[in-house]
């Protein structure tokens, strides 16, 4: 007698399978991370700044680099499943598609976003940040990467059938991500100059909640339309 098909079963199964997929292809995660480290480290060489300037430009650069490297991971979200036909089975499942999409997004964030957040203190040190500033930076990147997973999922679902869609996904997702970028980088800068950071954090968490409420549904709708 089969167990009842519950939403939790569907969510956890999709989540675990995607995590397993990411684990079996470490280069998908490592390559963007290495890109993040290399380019962030290359900036001070190119721009040739002194210590104080480095501290000032640090937050913005780290945020931009984090977003750019994270955008590189997005195109694996649905394209791999589309290639081997798994996406059909995901869409034909009795489970609600937005739920499965949410599971995919969470798995993507855990396997691509968390490593980025963990690596970021190293970059923070390159940019001469204090320890407490680095903690603030980690907090902002936490919201930022999650928001980017959510919004990026919409971009990825719109561009499944397109070859080499990396740049296009970035083009579509960046305008929507700008507010988070602005608030994230500014929050770190504000902290460095001694002001309160709570408003920025509130904004970013509100943005994440808002994205969480519509992104799975928008992605599911885009997936169904693109299923031809």
């Amino acid at each position, binding site marked *: 007698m089969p167990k009842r098909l519950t939403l939790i079963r569907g969510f956890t199964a999709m989540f675990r399978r995607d995590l397993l997929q990411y684990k079996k292809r470490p280069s998908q995660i490592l390559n963007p991370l290495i890109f993040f480290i290399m380019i962030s480290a290359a900036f001070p060489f190119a721009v040739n700044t002194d210590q104080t300037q480095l501290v000032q430009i640090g937050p913005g650069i780290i945020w931009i680099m984090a977003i750019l490297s994270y955008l590189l991971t997005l195109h694996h979200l649905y394209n791999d499943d589309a290639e081997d036909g798994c996406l059909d089975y995901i869409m034909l499942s009795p489970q609600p598609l937005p739920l499965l999409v949410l599971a995919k997004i969470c798995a993507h964030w855990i396997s691509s976003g968390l490593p980025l957040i963990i690596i970021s203190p190293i970059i923070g040190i390159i940019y001469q940040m204090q320890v407490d500033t680095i903690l603030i930076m980690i907090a902002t990147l936490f919201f930022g990467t999650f928001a980017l997973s959510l919004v990026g999922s919409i971009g990825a679902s*719109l561009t499944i059938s397109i070859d080499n869609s990396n740049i296009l996904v970035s083009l579509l997702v960046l305008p929507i991500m700008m507010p988070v970028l602005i608030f994230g980088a500014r929050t770190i800068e504000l902290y460095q100059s001694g002001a309160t950071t709570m408003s920025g954090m509130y904004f970013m968490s509100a943005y994440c909640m808002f994205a969480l409420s519509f992104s799975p549904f928008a992605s599911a709708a885009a997936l169904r339309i693109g299923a031809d």
Partner: protein
Amino acid sequence: MWILLHKMASPKYFYSIASSLIPWLFISGLLMMTYGMINGLFYAPPDYQQGDAFRIIYVHVPAAYISMMAYSLMAIAAFIALIWRIKIAHAVIVSAAPLGAWFTFLALLTGSLWGRPMWGTWWEWGDPRLTSELLMLFLYLGYMALRASIPDVIKADKLSAILILIGAINIPVIHYSVEWWTSLHQGSTLLKSGGPSIATSMLYPLIASIIGLSLIFGSLLLIRTKAEVLNRERHSRWIKEMILKGEI
């Protein structure tokens, strides 16, 4: 009016309505723009603070207004197209996008030219209204890029309609950015309780410019949509009949 709108969903009817509307819109738009330009550039008194530099308002404000209106139009059309499945709405979105993008660029350009004498800078990165208007240009460009990458027309229509709806959140952000954050831009001048806070001799040409440029935008939009409808319906019988009768 609802019957008219309902009929407009048919491409053939839309085509004939558009053909008859275009000359009216264009000429009345041209007339209003002429009035607005002449009065604004020559007869309105110089601003006590900015002197004659403020006159760029007669191009900048209409362009900015239209850039936002075009996107709102696209968002409403995207909603209509996706929910009620009215195909012609997709043609409207496709036609409106390049126009909206150009007006956004014009708004940014004229704003920049105005900012130099008024604020001392060509661009101000901290300003929320400038940033969100620039974002809107990117949204337009992103839409056009997405459309260009998907060869199948129906799929491209629906997917890019979703994209437009996602980006629609930017419109209230642009509009309320001067209220929510500190900005170099001044607050609302026209839509305030208590009436507009601008002298009537400057106000009337401004309103005329806004309306006039909107009418011209409307006529350009209808021209482009007509062409788009022709392209999409090229296999249908009513077009063949019109060609045979020499009406196209």
